[in-house]
């Protein structure tokens, strides 16, 4: 499986911000809508692996990560299975972020299943 690489610090901002666009600059919503969603769709369509590198930033708020990744399921209706199959997270500086994102995806999927 071919890799698509995305670095949040390099390709978006080294200071990721709040959840929604109206709350401040470099929000999770902006990242998802402008960058992440397009690449996720491309990865699914062409059977690529999207490697998202979280390292090198000043730090993340929980809302940014939840909106960016959980929002793929909650808002953009990408399926949990497709994300699990095509999305790979690198976070060496803050390893627990991988678990956090996994939790956000699970929560979003559970809520979607209940609906």
């Amino acid at each position: 499986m071919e890799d698509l690489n995305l670095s949040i610090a390099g390709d978006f901002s080294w200071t990721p911000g709040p959840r929604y666009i109206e709350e401040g600059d470099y929000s999770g919503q902006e990242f998802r809508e402008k960058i992440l969603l397009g690449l996720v769709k491309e990865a699914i369509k062409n059977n690529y692996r999207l490697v998202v590198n979280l390292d090198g930033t000043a730090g993340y708020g929980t809302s940014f990560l939840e909106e960016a990744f959980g929002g793929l399921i909650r808002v953009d209706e990408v399926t949990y299975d497709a994300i699990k199959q095509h999305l790979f997270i690198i976070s060496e500086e803050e390893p627990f972020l991988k678990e956090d994102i996994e939790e956000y995806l699970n929560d979003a999927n559970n809520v979607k299943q209940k609906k």
Partner: protein
Amino acid sequence: MRKLYLTLKHKRANQRRIKRSLKKRIRKQEYLRNKNSSLQGSPHQEKYVKAKTKSSLQLGYELVVAPRNFSFRENPDLVVKFIDKIEKCYEKRKPVFVDMKGVAKISDDAIVVLIAIIVNFIGSKIKFNGNFPSDGEASYKLRTSGFFEILRDNLHGTKHLLNQREKYQFGKSNGIYTNAQKTVNSALGADIIKQASTTVWKTERRCQGLQRTFIELMQNTFDHAAIANEGDKHWWLSVNHMDKQNKVGFAFVDFGVGIFKSLSNKPNGHRFENILTKLKDLFGITKQHEFLEKILTGKMHLTATNEPHRGKGLPGIKDAMDRNSFSNLLVITNKAYGDVANGDYRELNINFEGTFIYWELNDSNRNIDGRP
């Protein structure tokens, strides 16, 4: 010989020397004036205020006496009582005279709270006056904190800025840096960390847990501080660089309605509607400080909301402290007092209409190389 000093070259040299000498004299005079003021606890502003005190009280000002230990962290009950008195005057649009003569100790967290209050008064065109602590050290700390520069800037600009819903910020001065904004400004958090890490480790480092805390607090103010509209309240941050101890203290204040009042006022259909009743039923707790503990440990959003993707902000801050990203986390909101670092949660006697959070960065905290 005399002829030599009359040449153009020497005339210019003389003029430069005279200018230098004059500048030096002025600087020295200023230094001595400031030194005298701080030693005697009797600065020029204080003399002016002393003369004004009597007339201010005659003009219908409400006298509010500041607590002797004017520190939010060390003396929360009395500081909240002091704020409550001022807030009541604010609601009645009554002018206030703050008597600080008896203040023996003042901390940066109290200064930032005082600034936030006064800016509210200025913004609402309600008169506010006060005097200086008689104690030399407390007086010196107040005067060198940037307190008066901030008030001066606000007297000339706050109303315009508040109306425009624009950000406004203040420069660093003698260790206390104060900022007030409405939106989430992650770049500002990163800049503050650069300065703070230089104080703590003598080089620029990244502290991602600290950055998370800044973002969560700003986000929290945006989401919860105002009952009516999100983003309608300002947050205030004071940063106190303690160079000798390789330590930096942060005090974050929002004068919204406080966490619990905000939670009890959520409208029908809101994700936090009736959340306190649900928590009461689930855990059998009734006191705000008990709720605070549940919120910080993340038990609230897991068990009592239908939207698990929200409400991770405050638990995220506690997680960051537990991962040693910073130390000494303290939360005061409404009637809840939580010394989170020591697991000491208790009830305050008087309601604090807002949220106050304090934490420290020291050289044992988690950090990594600066910006790659």
